């Protein structure tokens, strides 16, 4: 079976006056139909740039310099700009952290959704509005026909994000890339949207890439998890593997620093130092200066270590029985 999304060796570089920075470094993963992949990382880890690179949305001075992005077998990087435009929104779509990046503030929700429908499928406007109404219904918006007449400012933040997700769903794409879509929302609203997203993946078979900094969200939502650090995927596996038996010291450190599992008031295990600047990475493993397991060997490129499909980029992965 062809994966819905297959990314191999994706590399994105930003050539700035201050020097060249590799924001996404040889990133590979695949997502099957109906599965949810969580990409977790801290700020500057390259998780969002990975999402933008998949859709070919990288602006100067950035450039995707290597790798392939296959959507149901079609390599997006080999497509002409026109053909790529034909894919965006139809085969692969994106949901942003701020729904106002998707929505036009001066158009009614229905009008802009109908426009998005008719870009890829010529049909009458009433028919397109009907499609839009159905999409709003799928994401759990009450009285969707009414909402079609509303302007974005008349909707709450949670409602707007639902509309943005509905727009991403209009053409039943193979893949949806969601970049921190619930980060700005309240937990009760986030809970509602996570439940909808899980249902959508199960029912429509759309593959979802969920990019976030929130370990708790991916651990409850995703089937598989990639952990990114300084532009690389340092660990990849099923959610179960990565959360309950992490093998990369960074993943372990991240999980340990979440307060929930520790006795209140006791010092939290912390990762020393600060998140790295991509322009000043050390040789070899980028996590080396903060890593409790680092040795001299870590100054050389870390090897790929695969055990039962749980893949880590590390000289000294944590061994588990």
């Amino acid at each position, binding site marked *: 079976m062809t994966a819905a999304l297959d990314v191999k060796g994706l590399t994105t570089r930003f050539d700035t006056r201050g020097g060249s920075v590799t924001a996404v470094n040889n990133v590979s993963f695949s997502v099957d139909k109906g599965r949810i992949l969580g990409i977790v990382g801290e700020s500057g880890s390259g998780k969002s740039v990975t999402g933008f690179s998949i859709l070919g949305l990288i602006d100067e001075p950035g450039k995707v310099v290597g790798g392939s992005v296959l959507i149901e077998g079609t390599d997006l990087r080999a497509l002409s700009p026109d053909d790529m435009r034909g894919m965006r929104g139809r085969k692969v779509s994106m949901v942003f952290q701020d729904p106002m990046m998707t929505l036009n503030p001066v158009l009614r929700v229905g009008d802009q959704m109908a426009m998005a429908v008719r870009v890829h499928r010529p049909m009458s406007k009433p028919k397109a509005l009907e499609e839009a109404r159905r999409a709003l219904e799928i994401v759990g918006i009450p009285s969707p026909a009414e909402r079609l007449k509303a302007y974005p400012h008349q909707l709450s933040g949670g409602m707007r994000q639902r509309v943005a997700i509905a727009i991403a769903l209009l053409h039943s794409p193979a893949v949806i890339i969601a970049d921190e879509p619930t980060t700005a929302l*309240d937990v009760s609203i986030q809970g509602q949207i996570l439940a909808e997203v899980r249902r959508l993946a199960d029912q429509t078979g759309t593959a979802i890439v969920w990019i976030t900094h929130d370990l*708790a969200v991916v651990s409850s939502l995703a089937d598989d998890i990639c952990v990114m650090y300084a532009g690389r995927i340092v660990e990849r596996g099923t959610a179960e593997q990565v959360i309950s038996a992490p093998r990369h010291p960074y993943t372990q450190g991240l999980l340990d620093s979440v307060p929930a599992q520790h006795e209140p008031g006791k010092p939290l295990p*912390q*990762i020393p130092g600060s998140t790295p600047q991509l322009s000043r990475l050390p040789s070899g493993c980028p996590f080396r200066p903060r890593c409790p397991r680092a040795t001299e060997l870590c100054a050389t490129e870390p090897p790929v270590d695969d055990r039962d499909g749980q893949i880590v980029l590390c000289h000294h992965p944590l061994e588990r029985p």
Partner: protein
Amino acid sequence: MTQPLLKIENVSKRFTRMPGLAERLVGRLTGGGKPVVVHALSDVSFDVARGEVVGIVGESGCGKSTLGRVVSGIYAPSDGRVVLDGKPVAHERGGNVEKLTTRVQMIHQDPFASLNPRMKVGETVAEGPRHHGIIPRGEVQARVRALIEKVGLEGAYADRLPHQFSGGQRQRIAIARALAMDPELLVLDEAVASLDVSIQAQVLNLFMELRRDLGLTALFISHDLSVVRHVCDRVAIMYLGRLVELAPADVLYSDPKHPYTRALFASVPTVGSGKREFEAIKGEIPSPINPPPGCAFHPRCPLAGPRCRVEVPKLAGAGASRTVACHLNDGGVELKDKAA
């Protein structure tokens, strides 16, 4: 019993927006154009003992930040009063407000916005004590260095500008600035919310260490339930401007009583719980411009009855030093027969 350091007594805060000229003109014809009142805080009361850290938790619009600002003296309450160390504050004007601001210090969410980008961080830390004459002039520099070292940075960093620091380091500087005033009460408003997880743990550890060393009293405002549980002694849950539940952290987390508290806990995803159900609260948070009558949570509450739609529940004791504002706690949700 010793006197609490902070007493918040029946504090309400309303923000009123007067209609503009055009709105007033249109209002003449349509009957609209009336002032818009936002009920940010409604009748909030509780005490904070000396040395205690109380967490304030809630979703956006619940009034937690407004409460922090009223306590800090940034806003004067519309009703009620704030008493610090036995003396009422916040209503006072002029000179007294200045004295209050030296006793209560606030640490804000965004350390990129809260530090002056053109000021060396040492100057930022020194500004308050110098202005208020808290430290003799000759000792300011030494004191600033000691504070910067106290929050885990090198004393020599005092000569750097904010842009030379990471987010976590800036938040440490913001903490040093607050401590420079020798405050009796700290108000932390989402102080770790903008930090990465690995950095958040560092700043929380610093806070707990400082608390132990200096015996700090604090209001810790946050939307993050797991962070609050870790650092707070007692936790207050707020919804639409009202306090709905207040209890010691272990009591609240092991057995939440208010339906909103329960729903809030149920909708938060946790690491490694394998939990796949989130949809615990239906519907949206109502607008604080037109809060629902009766209990503000009743439109979303699975247990609401007729009484919840008409009568505002009072905060009342429910054992184990816990208080809850819910009719389930004081006689049920059915309307009492008036004739009886």
